[in-house]
């Protein structure tokens, strides 16, 4: 049964479904996954939609296999994706590491729930923020986006695919249960208005192709299986030929490449929105569903005359270090609400480096942070003696 990949129009759908539609609009044609609350709706919709657009869906035996399969799918030339939640994400981290090491574009949607362990399967959490940054062993950079609405589940899934293709790595969508399950208006633009990026292909003769030689903007063009380049792809430390090099020099060379392709391109990657920040004395910094609470808090506080602004992180990793370093001396305090006991706030504190106080508004999971708690924190920060 044929169907459209881009469902142009206005829809009422939940975030998980919007994620699926965003993926298809971005060109995703392979999904391998395993059911898990609260991400199952992504897989369910994919299983129905992918055959309509000539793609393949496969339900694997676990999340380890799902992640391995989408890496294989990506090398097979298909934009590939999986979706999961915390327990599954823990299992995927092994092969996310392989994807980082082998520079394999793909997308992992983690609809976060409260943990640790099985935790609260049906209730919200934001406890996987640091796991997404550091969870796989070793030395690497990552990219992760944090949608705050079903519309952003659509938009940021496209963004995640584009970043993964552009920078050749697995990109994580750090969604959460509320964003995944809430139903809202989702506008899908016409296909020709959606920016879709594809991996760079090698243009050199086959004999002189070096699969990991940095190309324009530091990212190596990627040959797919079947293109005739006979590349070797390994999770061992490897050189520009893709060949293992079991020494510290090759490790330095490879990890520098992995770092530089992200750190030297921050202006193409970083993404945050600001709301009423210009004259703000207190800045609320938030991401995902907590950014929705934060926006409500900031608007309400402004009505009461409090000088407060919002920074909503759309890309959470890499973290916009320079921006916060420059902002810190201009505000009295920064406040970060998150549904964990303090993760991204550690990064914010590190970057701010004591130039202004940083306050955490925390919830361990199971419920969102209400705007009134953020307003109280704003008031307290404004009342502090300078």
């Amino acid at each position: 049964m044929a169907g459209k990949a881009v469902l142009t129009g206005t829809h009422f759908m939940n975030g998980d479904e919007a994620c699926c539609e965003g993926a298809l609009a971005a060109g995703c044609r392979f999904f391998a996954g395993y059911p898990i609350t609260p991400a199952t709706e992504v897989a369910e919709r994919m299983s129905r939609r992918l055959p309509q657009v000539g793609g393949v869906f496969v339900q694997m035996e676990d999340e380890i296999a799902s992640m391995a399969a989408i890496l294989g799918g990506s090398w097979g030339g298909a934009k590939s994706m999986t979706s999961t939640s915390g327990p599954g994400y823990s299992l995927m981290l092994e092969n996310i590491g392989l994807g980082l090491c082998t520079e394999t574009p793909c997308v992992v949607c983690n609809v976060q729930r409260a943990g640790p362990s099985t935790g609260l399967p049906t209730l919200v959490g934001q406890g996987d923020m640091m796991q997404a940054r550091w969870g796989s062993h070793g030395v690497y950079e990552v990219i992760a986006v944090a949608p705050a609405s079903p519309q952003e589940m659509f938009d940021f899934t496209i963004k995640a695919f584009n970043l993964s293709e552009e920078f050749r790595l697995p990109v994580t969508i750090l969604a959460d249960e509320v964003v995944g399950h809430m139903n809202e208006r989702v506008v899908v633009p016409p296909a020709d208005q959606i920016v879709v990026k594809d991996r760079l292909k090698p243009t050199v003769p086959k004999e002189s192709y070096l699969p990991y030689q940095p190309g324009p903007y530091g990212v190596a063009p990627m040959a797919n299986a079947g293109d005739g380049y006979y590349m070797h792809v390994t999770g061992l430390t490897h050189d520009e030929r893709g060949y293992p090099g079991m020494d510290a020099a090759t490790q330095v060379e490879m990890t520098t490449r992995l770092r530089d392709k992200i750190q030297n391109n921050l202006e193409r990657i970083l993404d945050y929105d600001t709301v009423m920040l210009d004259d703000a004395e207190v800045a609320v910094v938030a991401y995902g569903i907590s950014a929705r609470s934060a926006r409500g808090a900031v608007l309400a506080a402004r009505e009461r005359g409090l000088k407060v602004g919002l920074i909503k992180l759309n890309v959470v990793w890499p973290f916009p270090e320079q921006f916060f370093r420059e902002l810190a001396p201009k505000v009295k305090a920064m406040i970060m609400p998150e549904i964990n006991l303090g993760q991204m706030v550690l990064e914010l504190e590190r970057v701010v480096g004591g130039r202004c106080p940083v306050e955490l508004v925390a919830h361990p999971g199971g419920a969102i942070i209400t705007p009134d708690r953020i307003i109280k924190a704003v008031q307290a920060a404004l009342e502090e003696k300078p």
Partner: protein
Amino acid sequence: MSAQAQAAPQAAHPQDELLRTDRIPHIWCSGCGIGIAFGSLMAAIAKCDTPRDDISVVSGIGCTGRLAGYIHLDSFHTTHGRAIPFATGLHLTRPQNKVIVASGDGDLLAIGGNHFIHAARRNVDLTVICVNNFNYGMTGGQLAPSTPFGAKTTTTPMGSPDEPFNFCALAAACGATYVARWTALHIRRLTTAISEAMNKKGFSFVEVIAPCPTAFGRRNKIRRSLDLLRFYYERSVVKNHLAPGEATIDFDNKLVVGKFVDIERPTYLDQYDMVNRGELEAWPATGVDASAAGQRKAG
């Protein structure tokens, strides 16, 4: 070093075009059986009609896992145990790709056992070659899912208390379309088996009983590779089409080798395409007689 050994690297090998010669010397020990399995695989690929661009080799971690690094094709050296699910993605997104998984017994059937089972059940069109050397060679010779009861390894210093797996029986039980086992001394039959497996649609499985003199042989007092090769070969009995469950690896009685399964079964993609064309009748095909079910309940 002898004059002969010095001269050896100069001479072209008949399979050079399938080798990443710039990566030779390889890491394998002299006398290792992996080289024989590799040679058979290259011979089978050389005979195969599929264009080279459409053949990929995927391996996991371990001594055999390094095989992907020496073959001059699209080759993928993945994580421990995950070669099969990686290969699944590679095949499903590019069905014309002939994907060969070559890895060790520990990789494919201990840490990767679950993936093996389910890929065979789904009948993903993969050729899986398992070099079984009865231990973990790469890490110095520990217990593997294949280690014979009583055999010594570094983690079973008094002899293994574990019962080993019969991989061929497992593959067959899970739905593999082709299952064969040969020792590394049955070179011609092994090459034929790999060729047949590659030409077979569906999940095909070839087990190669191979010597690991360095790690396994040494701890079990069969230090020389030739002695190990002979030890396996001499105990082998060829029993084609024997029920795989009876195809035991018994070193006292019989180490059964042969082709045990060669059947036709629709692959995952065959069935995926069929159901998505909407050609399948509703399940269950016979329907349910609701009134009869109700009566039974009432009774």
